């Protein structure tokens, strides 16, 4: 009888697990979403530049760039 009480899951634990699993799934979905978004953006040829200690080709004037 006592063992059965220990084995029975309490409502509190169910609610906590619901929060943990829910948040985990949301985070995993967000990571997947950002990855897929990046793939689509890059394939579309969207402008995505980070600072890399070099002149950015997109802001160099056309004449200067062709010289």
């Amino acid at each position: 009888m006592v063992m059965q009480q220990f084995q029975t899951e309490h409502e509190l634990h169910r609610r906590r697990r619901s929060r943990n699993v829910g948040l985990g799934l949301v985070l995993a979905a967000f990571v997947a979403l950002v990855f897929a978004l990046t793939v689509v953006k890059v394939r579309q040829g969207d402008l995505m530049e980070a600072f890399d200690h070099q002149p950015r080709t997109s802001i160099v004037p056309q004449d200067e760039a062709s010289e």
Partner: protein
Amino acid sequence: MIPGSQWPRPTDPLIQKRAGMSDTHAYDHTPEAEFGDFVALLKPRVMSLVVFTAFVGLWVAPVPMHPFLVFCSVLFIALGGGASGALNMWYDADIDAVMNRTRGRPIPSGRVTGGEALGLGLGLTVIAVMMLGLTANWFAAGFLAFTIFFYAVIYTMWLKRWTPQNIVIGGAAGAFPPMIGWACATGGISVESFLMFALIFFWTPPHFWALALFMKEDYHKAGVPMLTVTHGRAVTRRHIFGYTLVLAPFALWLGLTSVGGPIYLAVALVLNVLFIRGGWQIMRRSEETAIADNYAVERRVFKLSLYYLFLHFLALMVQHWVGAW
């Protein structure tokens, strides 16, 4: 005092200690939030309207977008709508605790604290706006940020408790999503997107006031100046009819723009005739007649208003699919 802070969760150790509760007592008698409670803070039913209208705004825009970017844009607009819902529940926890319909919401029922709702609302606002900027463009992201500000600050904190026109002006927040959707695709606004805004903006008052006539909530006790309370039910009935008249030209005008066409115009014509007729019937009824048949006409017009908005936007989608003007 921060609104909502008067709703501490009873599982807080300090509260348990003050109440002389053992862990067992606390666990047996106090609610604790589950994942669904945080989802409920985002007002999923309101989000469904945001998702649908924002999607139509994007769908009918003249600039095509990659399907996955459409999906992400609508998702982040919906997330922004959810964030404003959480901020609304945080600020309105005192009102929600008084009214029967809202008493079971996560904050007044003690399952979620006001601070948690505020944190969720602000956090989701930042994520939704930034991600929409990266997904679509920064004009649309700024528009989304303004919409959240409008709903959470202008409507919830200011207008709702101050003027009986709260529903009218606050309705703008619910009307912006198709404009944001359009802005995601085009990077700007146009007469078409303004008319989609106007369609929802002028639809909101008759929709909510028809509901307010038969859902007699205790707005007076909650301190919310609803038109039914401040100006009486007869004035509310006249306002409903008046707004159905104002709404119709905007709905039909949308049919004459680049997103319109014969299918949309036919649908809009029929729906507006029915809606004006419903508004007229509501205005002509006395309160005694309405009580006698348990607000049958008011309930019917409210139901019609739901179909009205859904079918207008559905007609826009169909029209775009078969070809607009």
